[in-house]
């Protein structure tokens, strides 16, 4: 399953500045496994030791947040677009 992954500025230091990476993966977990295998710096950046995405990181499949889908078990199909975007948040 060839999936296109969008990497925003904050995470490009882990992908040798690549903004877009193509990955073969059947679900989001496998996609993260593959990215971490390919890019050493990706390890720990997106998810914790238990395999769950950090609270400040949002993952989207075709624009839909995976929390509203099946989380890291969300299935992927050929041509899907995945985005990994840290939250922009703060407060007084």
């Amino acid at each position, binding site marked *: 399953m060839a999936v296109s992954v969008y990497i*925003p500025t*904050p995470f490009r230091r882990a992908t040798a500045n690549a903004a877009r990476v193509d990955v073969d993966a059947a679900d989001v977990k496998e996609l993260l496994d593959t990215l971490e295998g390919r890019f050493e710096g990706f390890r720990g950046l997106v998810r914790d030791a238990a395999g769950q995405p950090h*609270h*400040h990181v949002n993952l*989207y499949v075709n624009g839909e947040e995976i929390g509203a889908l099946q989380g890291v078990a969300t299935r992927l199909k050929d041509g899907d677009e995945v985005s990994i975007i840290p*939250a*922009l*948040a703060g*407060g*007084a």
Partner: protein
Amino acid sequence: MTPLLTAAELEAIQRHARADYPAEACGVLLVRSGSGEERRLLPCRNIQDELHAQDPARFPRSSRTAYYIAHADLLEIGKREGEGFEVRVIYHSHVDAGAYFSETDRRNALVDGSPAYPQATYVVVAVADGRVTESRAHRFSPEGQDFVEIPFVVDKGSVRAESR
């Protein structure tokens, strides 16, 4: 040298902050450099109240003291980045409080100890009783490895901000 914010952009940000009071307003300025600089101010939706309603343990604050830029806006920012735009300014308002860069702001602006958007200046607008009382700017200092306040100089309506 182009301004950090034009007079129209500063006015739009302050208008947004007043309009959303007593909730925090948030947004970004995207800039694409080239022969002619292209600037796009993107006022974003603060979904903090929705997150708080869904999961108060994880999101204990309401929009009065916190902001969280909506997923659709994050995706829009990502799309623009893909078109060559850079996140130049990230702004939000503080409600009935000063325009300081809070510990929450600082923590959320870092990814794994490094600034999420190294080129970005964080602008905080203080709103009290529905009126803008002050605006301040903050930027990551590579030397100090922390965010520092930088002068917020309004010159003929537009804003200059120099880190050094």
